[in-house]
């Protein structure tokens, strides 16, 4: 009986660490999910632009570390859609002027949302944005290296300034 329980525990542990579920993890290094529904916005002044902003939680047992520069947007065919990502839900400004920034320290990258290290169970804000172009399909997912998040569809909230 003890061996059976041990086997069950091993299987459960593997299941917890492994890539299960509809969010499409491709590896065992971490798993992020949206916490609640992200907001989809369209600035009135930029009718082709879309922002998706929400909070993501690390539901795995390992830390997830992601650089915003490594986050990609993909359409339904797996093609990259040009866009930007930032682990922030408001405006943050780097302490060093833009053109002086060869390599910011890690802590500064985290402060301004260019880098996120998310401990198991923790959550961080995430905002992605893209500019729609003719002939290009809208992105349907955010790929963050070791996994991906679905992007919500539906009409955006038009935001006046």
């Amino acid at each position, binding site marked *: 009986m003890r061996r059976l329980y041990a086997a069950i525990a091993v299987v459960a542990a593997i299941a917890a660490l492994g890539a299960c579920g509809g969010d499409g993890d491709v590896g065992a290094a971490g798993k992020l999910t949206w916490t609640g529904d992200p907001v989809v916005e369209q600035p009135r002044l930029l009718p082709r632009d879309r922002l998706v902003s929400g909070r993501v939680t690390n539901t795995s047992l390992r830390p997830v570390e992601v650089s915003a520069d490594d986050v990609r947007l993909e359409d339904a065919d797996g093609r990259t859609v040009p866009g930007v990502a930032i682990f922030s839900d*408001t405006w943050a400004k780097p302490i060093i002027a833009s053109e002086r920034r060869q390599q910011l320290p890690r802590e500064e990258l985290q402060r301004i949302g260019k880098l996120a290290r998310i401990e198991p169970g923790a959550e961080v804000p995430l905002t992605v944005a893209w500019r729609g172009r003719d002939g290009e399909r809208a992105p349907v997912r955010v790929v963050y290296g070791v996994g991906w998040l679905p992007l919500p569809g539906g009409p955006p909230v038009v935001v006046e300034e």
Partner: protein
Amino acid sequence: MPRLRSVSFLAALALLALPAGAGAHAERTAYFPDHRLGSVPEIRTDGGTARVVCKADSAQRIAAMPAGPARDRSQALLGACRYEHIQEAVDAAASGDRILLLPGVYREEPSRAAPDDDPACKDLVERLPGGWTALTYEGQRACPQAQNLVAILGDGPDADRRCDEKCQLQIEGTGRRQDVLIEGDRRKLNVIRADRADGIVLHNFTVEASDFNNIYVLETNGFRLSGIETRWSREYGVLTFTSDNGVYEDIEAFGHGDSGIYPGSGPEGHCKRYGILIQRVNSYNNTLGYSGTAGNGIHVRDSSFHHNVTGIATDSLFPGHPGMPQDCAKWENNQIHSNNLDLYDREHDRMCKKPYLQRPLEYVCPAILVPIGTGLLIQGGNGNITRNNRIYNNRRFGIRLAWTPAILRGVKDLRKQYDTSHENVFTGNFMGLPPTGDPQPNGLDVWWDEQGRGNCWSENVAPPQRGLRSSPGTLPRCPGSRTVRPGNIPKALSVATCATFDPVKNADPPGCTWTVPPSRPR
């Protein structure tokens, strides 16, 4: 405290590993002087030893000046000239001396030749949180020209952080303002640095071409910056930091990649005392006419901030700035208008990708992204008074007021996340109304993220046919709400990707409207 934010946001804060901050542009940790031990210096016509500095062509320049007191005075001083470079005179000076600059161009060649990475001070650095290092004050003393063309270092080799040996110095041009030019080399960070130089007076000259600050005043108790033209710094014209008992007056500031003037980490008077007075400043054609991170205790009056990208900004956005969160600036009787300068167009995108030294000196490249078309921006601040100003023809916002979570400046204390923006009062301003002529409306007169306690608008005047236009449509009258309003989340979200701005890699961030020049309002 808004429930949505409190549950998810604060939970995130508990687990995010964000450190306390680094100094701005890797500056050493700085401290406020005790304002009770200092005072604002006056411009003197006598006292101390007069040390006259001139150039080889000063005589010809004086002869070419129009007849008048400035020429007469300069002529009379020619025979007393003993120094070729300003730094020489500073080195020779004792407290109370006056350094008189005859007409000429001062390039400070010996300072230019001094190495930036002098081995004599390589170990005289402070290791700051976040991985930065900065020269200590002792490092500045050991290598005064590593970062500065002219360095006035007032504190002796003791631990008191107070001026001992070059106090109450006055450096002034003897001609007209344009007759004395102190010219940076675009490589040294600062043209003039006054560091613990209590009582410093800088008066009547033109300064240009620093890599960082044309004039930099740090930890100085008592200063007067008067009658100065500052232009074409890569970042700041005049920057003061953790300094008190100061005056900026009759300053013309233009062509700077960051701010024309920057009173940062200002005096901590908490609305009972305004330790720095700024008056009769004309600041234009900069990214920001005025900027002040932790710009506390500043009284700005009778000045004009116009034709910048954003006219005035104050904020609580960065670590490493003593005096956070920002509080108690007072802007009265100023003109804040026509701040619609577009430095983010395709031409600037192309030119500003070039290395700095390959660009013409006069070409302004924005060091930061701020919203085109904004008059006054408070991004995390408390207790600011905006009164009796003319705020017009700013095509995006006349006034923009928003919250800044403390985590952005590295403060993890959950109780402090909503320590801004409260008690900001806007009264008696003329919105969309220039002093004369027809109305020149702002895009929106007021944009507010609807967050905070005690923010209020009363007795502001707008053109009758248009009225005051704001978002939200109704603004609280003074004294404002006694409870903390939660804020409008979509409004805050809408500017998040502006933080991804990079003039080389991402000059036009998707989702960020700030680089879109607003159209003329009707």
